[in-house]
């Protein structure tokens, strides 16, 4: 039971991380109609920036804030230089162009930070375990991730639903031409949204940096999971991304933790040991396939798509 609660929290934590990535992807797709494969690169950059700035300033929090600002700036510069010409082109051009950017960023990181990975160490008060229930201990830092991501999700909700900028973002998602015709500076709006998406990805990267090693290509596997999340949630829907991210995070984590034991109960130990790793990594894709059969547009289809 204790193990179960721990795994449950791990699943929520993975889900929150996926939400940060998926929210940026789905915003960028919903508003600019852009498929962005370089999103994982911004996640990677966030982690590298955090590791560098934290080492320079000797403070995790300060390093994280600087890294967040740096990824935002990177996103804005990237949008102005490389992404703008891709708007209005077909999805194949987007895939090709942003795939090129992904290769570029991997190599750039290798040039600047070297081929070896980096580590980011936490301040000592975050290294302890907290007693969340009588007898159940959980690493403090993972709780920090969950709390911080929830806060970001709330801020994002307020930004999109309650501010003027958010109103423009929603308007842009439902009818781009009309928003432009009404005199809104659509170029600036696009740049800001891309920067926001970049900052969200960077935030995911920097929060994850102390748990994983910071390395080249770290964004590539997680990007696919983020894609699965937005397919399940419905492309263009932030609410869908939130729900789907938690579902995917839970299923993936719990599958990995408990499937081997479940299979062992049903099959011989040997068969279970060979099947379990494959089956548990397939589970979320099975879910995606099932969702596609019953709701091809995802759980929360965006209204005007």
């Amino acid at each position, binding site marked *: 039971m204790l193990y179960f609660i721990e795994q449950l929290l791990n699943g929520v934590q993975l889900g929150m991380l996926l939400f940060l990535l998926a929210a940026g992807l789905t915003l960028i797709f919903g508003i600019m109609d852009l498929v962005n494969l370089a999103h994982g690169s911004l996640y990677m950059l966030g982690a590298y920036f955090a590791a560098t700035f934290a080492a320079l300033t000797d403070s995790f929090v300060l390093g994280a804030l600087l890294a967040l600002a740096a990824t935002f700036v990177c996103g804005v510069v990237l949008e102005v230089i490389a992404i703008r010409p891709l708007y209005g*082109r077909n999805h*194949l051009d987007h895939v*090709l162009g942003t*795939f*090129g950017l992904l*290769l570029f960023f991997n190599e750039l990181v290798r040039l600047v930070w070297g081929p070896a990975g980096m580590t980011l160490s936490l301040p000592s008060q975050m290294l302890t375990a907290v007693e969340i229930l009588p007898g159940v201990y959980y690493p403090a830092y993972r709780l920090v991730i969950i709390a911080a991501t929830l806060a970001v999700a709330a801020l994002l909700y307020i930004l999109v639903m309650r501010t003027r900028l958010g109103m423009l973002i929603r308007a842009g998602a439902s009818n781009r031409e009309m928003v432009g015709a009404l005199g809104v500076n659509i170029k600036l709006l696009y740049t800001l949204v891309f920067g926001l998406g970049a900052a969200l990805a960077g935030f995911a990267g920097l929060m994850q940096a102390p748990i994983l090693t910071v390395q080249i290509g770290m964004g590539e596997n997680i990007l696919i999971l983020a894609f699965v999340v937005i397919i399940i949630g419905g492309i263009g829907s932030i609410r869908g991304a939130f729900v789907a991210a938690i579902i995917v995070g839970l299923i993936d984590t719990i599958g990995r933790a408990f499937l081997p034991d479940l299979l062992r109960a049903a099959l011989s130990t040997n068969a279970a040991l060979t099947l379990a790793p494959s089956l548990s990594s*397939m589970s979320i894709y099975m879910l995606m396939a099932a969702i*596609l*059969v019953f709701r091809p547009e995802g759980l929360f289809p965006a209204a005007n798509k």
Partner: protein
Amino acid sequence: MTAPFALANPRNAAVAALLVMLALLPLYTALTGNTFVMTLFTRVLILAIAAGSLNLIMGYGGMVSFGHAVYLGLGGYAIGILAKEGINAGLLQWPVAIAVSALFALVVGALSLRTRGVYFIMITLAFAQMVYYVAIGLERYGGDDGLTIRSRSTFGMVDLNNKTLFYYLCFAILIANIYLIARLVNSRFGLVIQGVRSNERRMRAIGFAVFRYKLVCFVIAGALCGLAGALLANHTNFISPAMMFWTRSGDLMVMVVLGGLATPFGPLIGTVTFLLLEEALSRVTEYPGLFLGPALLLVAIYLHGGIEGLLARRAR
């Protein structure tokens, strides 16, 4: 109007020159003893088959599949797994490789062709990635590290270990592949597929069972690419999950677009260009991606119709 085989046309001249060069390459190797070039070009030929099959669905059919490398992996793993279990007969191995790929394409196609646009891109990507993780989980067949294949497929008297012979086998299959796809896309079936690319709703209104046509096309492309996977496993004597990681699928897309979408020789031109460029860059610089990446971006932004289109435009 140009005659179909007018060599004065720069595109046809370039294609003819490329084919002659590919046909004579083993001669060059025999004269100079430079086997590296032949090994590199055997890889080019095999990936050109894969790129050609992707061109069938992506170029002619408008189905932007971002998981095509999975069939390279499935074909390769069919060979590798059978070889590990002691079955080396090519007449059994190769049909299995093709059948497994076709079957997987049938399942993925049946699910993903229900959607379109960006959903289709992401779903094909996700299913390919699923197979990648399954392959990592296959401890018996090397897991993450991959599996060395002890012996190549056997075809009676024919010895695939002969590098020249294997090169020409790949060359022959490539030519047959290009011919088959060219015939297919100009048949009634192919015209329906191309019609769906330009306007699916209209094709459905005329009364075509669009879904079935697309699915069959998707399965054919998967089967052809599975054959390329079988060749690739025989070429490298090695299989690993890395051969179907999603960036490999990206490479295949790049080859097709670089060469020229929906053109018979575009994938071959694109594969030759991409692999030679990669090889050349990795010799000049330690960081090839620093140049390759922006080059792809520029291709996406400016080079409509790929190299083949560039040559064809000069002809007019």
